């Protein structure tokens, strides 16, 4: 074989087989310690959906003793899980974040009062909210209903609530509410105010990256979203198997939880993913909800300026 022919063949082979590029690691930080709320992400990782999509994802869980803003500064994850209102708050503070995947389609927020009190009749009382990702709706309802709650930022609601140090607490229907049930605390219907039943149905958890990261890693972000969606769809079809995966993460993270609670949590999280209008898992940010959140937060002084749907989502 002539040297020219060899050169041509080598060139063709090199052209047909481009050099394998090592995928850049994408560090994704959840919004809480390991639990079924993140089942879709765990499954996407464990089932190799991320790998198949060409994204090298590392799932991390945050410390509960700090806030997402501190996490972003300190650990600099590429993607972080935030509630829609938290993301809007960060954006209004000048931290451009963009949603690459939305897994919650409904509000899970509850306001629960002690001793069967109507939460909306607790004027001036102490109400606990979650420090790492504030329950903005507590501020909204306090302002709108002129309740003047004393907002207490806490890391964990349950012991605070049980101790009587607070009069009411914000809770999610998939976590703190179940923990309260699990604590044996008697909860009456009257003591639980479900925001989604009172015109405050604003979707919550989604995955956000900085706009600059998105500009540089648009494809990875899209692939991440696609693989995560596959993960959640698998979870919806195989909840028990998904729970096994969840419990693996729970044990590894030493989370103080158990399978029974996680099962209930997963059921609730999967329910919250179903869009009220389309009755499907759309995994998308809803313009109307962004607008509603924007309006409510602005009215309560929770946003420095209006945050639009376009600012929040992928162009």
């Amino acid at each position, binding site marked *: 074989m002539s040297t020219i022919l060899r050169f041509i063949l080598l060139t063709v082979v090199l052209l047909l087989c481009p050099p394998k590029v090592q995928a850049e690691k994408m560090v994704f930080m959840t919004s809480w310690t390991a639990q079924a709320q993140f089942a879709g992400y765990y499954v996407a990782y464990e089932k190799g959906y991320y790998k198949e999509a060409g994204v090298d994802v590392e799932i991390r869980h945050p*410390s509960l003793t700090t806030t997402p803003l501190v996490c972003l500064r300190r650990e600099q994850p590429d993607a972080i899980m935030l509630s829609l209102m938290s993301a809007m708050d960060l954006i209004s503070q000048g931290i451009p974040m963009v949603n690459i995947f939305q897994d919650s389609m409904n509000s899970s927020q509850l306001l629960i009062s002690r001793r069967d009190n109507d939460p909306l009749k607790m004027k001036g009382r102490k109400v606990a909210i979650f420090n790492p990702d504030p329950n903005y709706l507590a501020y909204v309802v306090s302002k709108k209903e002129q309740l003047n709650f004393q907002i207490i930022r806490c*890391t964990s609601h349950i012991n605070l609530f049980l101790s009587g140090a607070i009069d009411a607490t914000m809770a999610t229907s998939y976590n703190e509410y179940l923990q309260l049930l699990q604590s044996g605390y008697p909860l009456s219907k009257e003591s639980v105010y479900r925001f989604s039943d009172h015109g405050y149905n604003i979707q919550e958890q989604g995955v956000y990256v900085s706009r600059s990261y998105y500009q540089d890693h648009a494809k990875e972000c899209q692939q991440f979203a696609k693989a995560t969606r596959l993960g959640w769809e698998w979870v919806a079809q195989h909840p028990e198997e998904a729970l096994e995966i969840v419990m693996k993460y729970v044990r590894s993270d030493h989370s103080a939880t*158990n399978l029974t609670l996680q099962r209930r949590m997963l059921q609730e999280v999967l329910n919250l993913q179903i869009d009220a209008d389309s009755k499907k898992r759309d995994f998308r940010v809803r313009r109307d909800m962004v607008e509603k959140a924007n309006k409510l937060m602005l009215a309560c002084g929770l946003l420095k300026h209006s945050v639009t749907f376009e600012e929040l989502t992928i162009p």
Partner: protein
Amino acid sequence: MKSLKDYRRSLSARLSVWTVLVVTAIFLAALGIMFAESRDHVRKDTLGKAQQTLDGTVLHIDNTLRAVEVAANNMLRVIESNLDKPDKMFDYSRQVLETNPELSGCSISFEPFYYKEKGEYFSAYSYNNGDSIETENEGADYYQYHTMDWYLIPKLLNRPYWIEPFQEDDDWGIVVQDIFSSYSQPIHDKAGKVVGTFSVDIPLDWFSDTVSATRPFPNSYTILLGKGGTYLVHPDSTRQFYETIFTTSLQESDSAIESLGRAMIAGESGYRQMTYHGELLHVFYKPFKNTGWSVAVICPESDVFAAFNQLRRTVRLVTAIGLLLLSTWFIVSRSVRPLQKLVDSTHQMTQHEFTGEIPDSTREDEIGRLQRRFKALQQSLSKYVGKVRQQSAVLEARRAELQEAYDRAKAEEHVRNAVLHQMTADMSAPVADITAVSRTICEEYQEMTDDYMDAMVDKIEKDANQVGEMLNQLLREAT
């Protein structure tokens, strides 16, 4: 019809049966009373022991915690008297651990910007890692202690409070892996305003070891519940700290467990029986005075009544052996009963009684075969003897007939002889006449006239006819 012997035997048997029944009834009643008394006694004893063990454990923990509280309260006065010396707080937190080796950590923490020069976070924290005591300012953006239970609860309640056991997950500064509970109390300035909190930490292991050691019986165990029902101590380590007593009820309601859980977290003391996973359990529970936690000693039924069960097992064994012997006797007796019947039958047979009843037997063993063959023998003998008796009767009848015939013949002979004798006697006169006439004729033939001769001949002829008739009559009689 029963013989007197049978009647006596029957009376004796009935008396025996009644005696056995009455004695058995008395024995069973006595045994029952003894069991009930023993059970009650054992129950009181063991339950008392369990209660005492629980009381002892609670008292021991309460006293230890009280000592912790006293030490913390003493230090609190020192802290509050030296609020103007923030750097001394590190010394104080260290000093607490040096003088209280059972404590693992101590925080003296203040409100944001209480010391302006110290910034937003100022918390003097010391940790005893077992080898040495480390001290640092634990507050930072990464560790926003103002939002933690141990800081918030005593501050908001404005009183000391035992914090539920917790584990922190921060990975900077002093990293603590322990699960611990904190005795936290607010720090007041001179105006009485809460300016921070003072917390001392005690590892959960200390409680676990102390509470787990509370085992009045080999299979009993202890659970310790936090205020929210969390298993702070549980024999199943996968549930300890991860589950509450109500967790299983999230999936499937269990009223017994829920009721116990509610009673315990309500701070009640008590005792109750409950069935869990099919096992009867005796549960004693009592709260700690200091923490509001509640400890329960759970004793399986098998443990509570171990001594009683041992007694019951022994009695059961003895009863079983007795029953076995009785059964053996009964079986053997029942088995040889046909032999007894055979003995009786044999005895009857020796008395020429072949009609005694030998029941049919379906048994296939030797006794059954013997019984059947003996019955066949009895029936055969009975038939044979019957025949013999029948023949004897016939013979007897015949003999009687013969005797009668003989007697009759003898009587006839006698009559005949008498007749013959009479006839002979009757014949002797004519014969004698004939003889005398004949001799007269022979001797006096010459001298006899013809008439006389004729008269003699006529006489002879008359006597001869008379004799001839008599002979004819005799011949007739003879035939």
